[in-house]
C-alpha cells in the first residue's frame, strides 16, 4: 500500500484555469497532513482507514486535546477528496485540520476526524493526465460492454491542452440533434422547444475520438466507479458509474466501516459535489418503501437552514451546482446512520464583478439564457477576464463525427476555486467546524427530585436534557432509531423497581434543551445507594447517586 501523500508517477502540472492549484497540490496537502502530526504529536495522530482500489492508503487525521480519550469523546467527521473533480476539497480539509490544531482549546472534549482524501485514485489519475479531470476510482469498468476495458477515453483532440465538449453540427438521422446554441448567448447550449419552434441543431459529446470503432465517442473512459455515489441509500442500481452494488468499492466500504465502527460520530462535514446546505433537500420524496423521507425529515429543516446560514457566513459561498445526492456518502450518513451530515461544495459561482463605472448593467428584463447556472458562471468568467476558464467554440473536422465545434468550460473552471481562495475556504471550514464542536450535544441528568413516600419507598423524578445546541441525532436518526440512543439505567435490581423501567432507551434528544422526563418509584434500604447512569455512546457514562432521598453526587464521569 502506497502512502497517500506519495505521488504515483509523472506528476505534471495541470492546466491551471483561473489560477486553480496544480494537481501536485493534492500530494502537497497530504504531505502537509503528515507534517501536522509531527508538529502536533500530543493532539494529532494519523491512521489508515483502508486502501483505494489502486492500493493507495486512505488516511485519517485524528485530532483531540486528549488523544487517549479520543475514541470515547463525541466526534466530528470532516471528509474531503471524495471525487476527483474537486481536488480543492483535499486542501480545504487539510487546512481545516491545520487551523483546528492551531487552537486546540476550542476542541472542548470533541474529537475531530479528518479524512482529507477519501478517493485517492482519482487524484492519482488526474496527476498523470492533465487535460481533464476524472472523478472516479481506479476500478476498470467496461462501460460499453464490448469486452474491452477503458479503451475509449475522452481526449484532447484539438491539442488545446484541455478536454472540453464537442457539438456536432449536422448529426445524421439515427442520432437526432438534442441541443442548439442558445440564441441569447451562443456560447451556451439549450434544449429545443418545438412548441415555440425552437429547434435542435446539434448533438453534444465529450471531446474525444471513437477509438474502438463502435461509432460511439469517448464512451469507455479509464476508471472507474464514482465513490460518492456508491453508498446504499437511494443507490442507483444499474448506473454503471455507481458500482456493481452498493459499497462495491474499497474506498466506500472503508469509509462505511470506519463510520459504523465509530458510534461517537455525531456530525459530519463532507466536502465534495453533494450539497445540502445551499440546496436544502425537498422533504417530500420518500425512499422506496414509502415509510421514511428519502432526503430530508421535515423536522430537521429549521436546523439545516440555520447551519446553512452559518456556513454561508463563514465561507461566503452563495451558489452551488446541482447534483443528485442519491447514493452519496453524506446522504447515507444522514438517512442510514442518523448522523447530522452536512455536505458542501465549499465554493460556487462567485458574484460577477461590477461593470466598469459608467457602463450600465443590462436591464432586468433582458432575455436570459435557458441554462441560468452556466450563464452565471460565464458572466463571472467574462467580467473577471479569465482567459482559460471558457474555451471559445472552434470548428474542427472530427474523423468520425465530421464537422464539430470544440469548446466550453475548462474541466476545473466550475469545480475548483482559485488557488488563492483555498486557505480562506480552509479557514471557513475550520470556523464552521468550530461551531459544530461548540454546539456538540451534551445530554445529562437534571432536575433530580427524590422524596420518601413511605419507609423504604422513594419516588424519583428527573429529566434528561441536552445542553448542547445540536441534537444527539437529527430527527431522521431519531425516527429511524439508527442513531446512538441515550440510555438511562437504574442500579437497583428489577425487583426493587415498583414503577418505571430499570433501563430506558431514548432514540435521542433534540438540541438546545431537548428533554425527556424520568420517573421511578423504588424500594430501598436505609443508606442504600441508587445510581442513575446516563450513557450516550459518544461520551463516557455520567453517574448520579442518590442516598436516602438526597442526591449525593451528580455528573460523575465513569471511566
Amino acid at each position, binding site marked *: 500500500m502506497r502512502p497517500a501523500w506519495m505521488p504515483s508517477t509523472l506528476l505534471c502540472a495541470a492546466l491551471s484555469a483561473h489560477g486553480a492549484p496544480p494537481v501536485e497540490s493534492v500530494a502537497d496537502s497530504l504531505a502537509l497532513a503528515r507534517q501536522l502530526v509531527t508538529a502536533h504529536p500530543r493532539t494529532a495522530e494519523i491512521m489508515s482507514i483502508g486502501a483505494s482500489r489502486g492500493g493507495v492508503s486512505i488516511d485519517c487525521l485524528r485530532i483531540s486535546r486528549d488523544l487517549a480519550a479520543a475514541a470515547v469523546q463525541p466526534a466530528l467527521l470532516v471528509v474531503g477528496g471524495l471525487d476527483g473533480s474537486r481536488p480543492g476539497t483535499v486542501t480545504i480539509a487539510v487546512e481545516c485540520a491545520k487551523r483546528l490544531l492551531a487552537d486546540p482549546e476550542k476542541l472542548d472534549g470533541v474529537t475531530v476526524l479528518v479524512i482529507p482524501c477519501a478517493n485517492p485514485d482519482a487524484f492519482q489519475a488526474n496527476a498523470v493526465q492533465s487535460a481533464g479531470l476524472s472523478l472516479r476510482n481506479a476500478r476498470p469498468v*467496461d462501460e460499453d*460492454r*464490448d*469486452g474491452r476495458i477503458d479503451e475509449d477515453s475522452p481526449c484532447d483532440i484539438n491539442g488545446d491542452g484541455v478536454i472540453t465538449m464537442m457539438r456536432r453540427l449536422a448529426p445524421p438521422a*439515427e442520432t437526432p440533434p438534442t441541443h442548439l446554441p442558445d440564441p441569447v448567448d451562443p456560447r451556451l447550449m439549450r434544449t429545443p422547444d418545438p412548441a415555440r419552434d425552437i429547434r435542435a441543431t446539434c448533438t453534444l459529446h465529450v471531446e474525444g475520438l471513437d477509438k474502438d*470503432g*463502435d*461509432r460511439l465517442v469517448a464512451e469507455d473512459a479509464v476508471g472507474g466507479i464514482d465513490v460518492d455515489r456508491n453508498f*446504499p*441509500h437511494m443507490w442507483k*442500481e*444499474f448506473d454503471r458509474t455507481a458500482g*456493481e*452494488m*452498493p*459499497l*462495491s468499492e474499497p474506498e466506500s466500504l472503508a469509509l*462505511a466501516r470506519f463510520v*459504523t465502527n465509530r458510534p461517537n460520530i455525531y456530525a459530519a462535514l463532507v466536502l465534495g459535489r453533494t450539497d445540502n446546505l445551499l440546496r436544502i433537500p425537498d422533504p417530500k420524496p420518500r*425512499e*422506496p*418503501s414509502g*415509510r*421514511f423521507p428519502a432526503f430530508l425529515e421535515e423536522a430537521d429543516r429549521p436546523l439545516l437552514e440555520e447551519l446553512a446560514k452559518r456556513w454561508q457566513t463563514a465561507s461566503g459561498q452563495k451558489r452551488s451546482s446541482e447534483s443528485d445526492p442519491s447514493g452519496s456518502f453524506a446522504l447515507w450518513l444522514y438517512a*442510514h446512520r442518523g448522523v447530522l451530515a452536512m455536505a458542501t461544495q465549499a465554493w460556487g459561482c462567485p458574484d460577477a464583478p461590477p461593470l466598469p463605472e459608467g457602463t450600465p448593467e443590462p436591464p432586468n428584463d433582458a432575455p436570459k439564457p435557458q441554462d441560468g447556472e452556466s450563464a452565471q458562471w460565464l458572466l463571472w468568467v467574462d467580467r473577471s477576464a479569465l482567459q482559460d476558464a471558457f474555451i471559445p467554440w472552434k470548428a474542427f473536422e472530427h474523423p468520425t463525427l465530421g464537422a464539430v465545434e470544440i469548446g466550453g468550460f475548462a474541466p476545473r473552471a466550475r469545480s475548483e476555486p482559485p488557488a488563492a481562495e483555498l486557505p480562506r475556504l480552509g479557514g471557513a471550514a475550520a470556523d464552521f467546524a468550530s461551531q459544530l464542536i461548540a454546539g456538540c450535544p451534551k445530554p445529562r441528568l437534571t432536575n433530580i427530585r427524590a422524596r420518601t413516600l413511605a419507609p423504604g419507598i422513594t419516588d424519583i423524578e428527573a429529566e434528561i436534557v441536552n445542553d448542547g445546541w445540536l441534537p444527539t441525532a437529527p430527527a431522521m436518526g431519531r*425516527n*429511524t*432509531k*439508527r442513531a446512538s*440512543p441515550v*440510555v438511562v*439505567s437504574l442500579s437497583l*435490581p*428489577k*425487583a426493587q423497581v415498583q414503577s418505571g*423501567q*430499570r*433501563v430506558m*432507551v431514548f432514540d435521542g434528544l433534540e438540541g438546545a434543551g431537548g428533554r425527556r422526563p424520568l420517573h421511578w418509584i423504588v424500594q430501598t434500604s436505609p443508606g442504600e445507594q441508587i445510581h442513575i447512569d446516563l*450513557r450516550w*455512546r459518544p461520551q463516557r457514562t455520567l453517574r448520579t447517586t442518590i442516598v436516602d432521598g438526597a442526591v449525593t453526587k451528580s455528573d460523575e464521569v465513569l471511566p
Partner: protein
Amino acid sequence: MMWRASLTCAASCLLASPCSGQQQIDGPTSIAWNRYYDAAEVDAVIDTLVKAYPSLLKIETIGASAQGRPLRVITLNNPATGSADAKPAMWIDGNIHGNELQATETVLYSIDALCRAHGKVKPLTELVDGCAFYFMPSMNPDGRAAWFSMQASPHAFRTGLVPTDNDRDGALDEDGPDDLDGDKSIGQMWRRDRFGTHRRNPRDPRILDAVSREPRPDGTIEYGEWSYAGTEGIDNDGDGQVNEDGAGGYDMNRNWPCDWQPDHIQGGAGEMPLCYPETRAVAEWILRHPNIAASQSYHNAGGMILRGPGASYREGEYSGSDRAVYDSIAAAGAEMLPFYTPMVIYKDLYTVHGGFVNWMAESIGIIAFTDELWTDRRILQNGSEPTAEQMMRWRDRLLFGQTVTDWTELQHPEFGTVLVGGPNKWSSRLPPPFMLEEEAHRNFAFTAFHAGQMPRVAFRSVDVKPIGNGVWAVTVEIMNDHRIPTRTARAAACSIGMPDTLTWTSAETSGPTVVASGPVPNRLEPAFNPVAAEPERLRINDGIPGLGARAFRFLVRGNPGQKATLRFSGEKFRAIETDIVLPKGP
C-alpha cells in the same frame, strides 16, 4: 408368441442398462440420508463426497464465517466435457438460516445423487456432462453449529453469530433465551394467570387450548389458567424484557444488495449490504462466475416454491417472458413436490428487502427460486393441516414422543409460576428423519429439472446464398431448446453481464469480409436490421429466447471456396461453432 417375445425384450433391456429400473444406484459412498448432520459432520460428508468422486468434484473454501468456520463451495463438473466456467452452471445453496437444517442435507444429497448417477442414468449423465453445479451446503455454518450445540428452538438460530446489540443498550448478545427445564431446547413459557387466555386440554394436558372469547350465555366471561409468556428464558440484563438480545439477532437473507433496506425498514438487514463475512464472500464469488444461469436456495419450511419480487414496488422487474419461464418451471415443481405451492414472495408470503433470491434474479438476472422445504401438510398425507390433537398423535405414534417435552412448572424470576416445555427444537419445520431422504430426493429432482432448463443452443440452419457481385447472404438460425433464455429479459433490459456474441472469423485474411450484419426480424423475409458497427462481431443483448430461435444474417464479400467460422458465445451457455464455405455459384 408375442407376449413371450416382449418379456424377453424387456428382460434384455434391463440387463443391458443396469439402471433402467428404480433400484438404488450403487456408488462408492454410503452416506445415510435419513439423519441430520451437525456443522462438523457436514464438513466430513463433503470430504467423503469429494474423496469418492475426485474426477467430478472440486472443493473451494471461499472465506470464513464470523466464527472462523470455512465457507465451502463444491463444484461438480465433468472436465472431460469441458471446464466448468465454459458451461452453464447452477448455483445451489442451503442453510443461510442456521436452523433450517434439511436445506444442507438436500444439497449434500444432490451432490451424491448426481455423482452416483453419472455414467449410469442417462438423463442425469447428460445433465452433468452438459453443465456445471456450484453447491454450497451451508451458507451459515455458525448458525448450524449453534443450533446443534446450544439450546435452540425450531426457529433459532436463524441468525449468524456476529455479536449484535439488538436492544440498543450498548451490550452485545446479553439477553438470549435460557433452557430453564434442561431439555436442551428452547420451548415455550406459560405464566399462571387467573384471567388466562388458555387452559390445559383435559384429554391431553400437554395441549393448551385457547379459551373462547365469546361471553357465556349468562354474559359472564370465561378465563383460563395460563397466558403465553414467550419463549423460554429470563431477563438476563434486567431491562424488563425477556430474550430480546440473544446471540446474533439478524437475518443474512435480508443482507443482499438488491433493494437492500436498513433495519428501520427491513428488520435484521444488518448495518449495510453484505456486512457479514458469509454474505460478502458468497456475493463476490458469484460475481466472479457469470456462467451461473440458474439458482436454487433451500430453506424451510412451508412447502413453497418462491420467486421474487420481495416488494410490491418491484413487480415491474419481472417481465412477461421471464414470468413465463418461472411459471413453467414452478409448475413442474408443484407436480414433483407434494403439497408445495408456487408463490411470489411479496404477494403470497410477506415483504422481503435484500433477499438472496431477489439479488440473483433482479441484480444478476438469472432464474432463481427458493424452496421452503417440508410442510406439515405431509403429516396426514392428504394435504390438510393437522389439528393440535392430530399433531400430538403424530408426535406420539410416529415420532414416539421424541419431539415434545412435557411441561415443567417452575418459579420464574419475572413471571412467577410458569409452565416450561412443549415442542422441542426438532418438533417442527424439519421432516422427521424417516421422511428426510424423500424430501431431499424430490427437491433434488426438481432442481435437476430446473438445471435442465439452462440454455442450450445449436445452429438450427445455416443458409449461404450468393446475391451477386461476389456478395453472399449467410443466414443462420440459432435455437435454444431449453426453457431459460440465454439472456433473461431482466438481464437484457438492465444490461446485466455481457451480451451474447455471434462472431464471424474468416479463415484467410483475404476474406470473406463481412460488409453488414444484423438480426433478421422475420426469418422468412430477406430484410434484416444491420448493426451500426463491428458487423463481424454481432452483440446480441437480448439473446436467444427459451424454447425458441432467432435468425441473423451476414452479407459477406468473397470468393467461392473461401471459408469462415461462425461462433456463438455467451456467458450462460456452451459456445457453438459452425464452418461456412462460400459455394461455387448457383
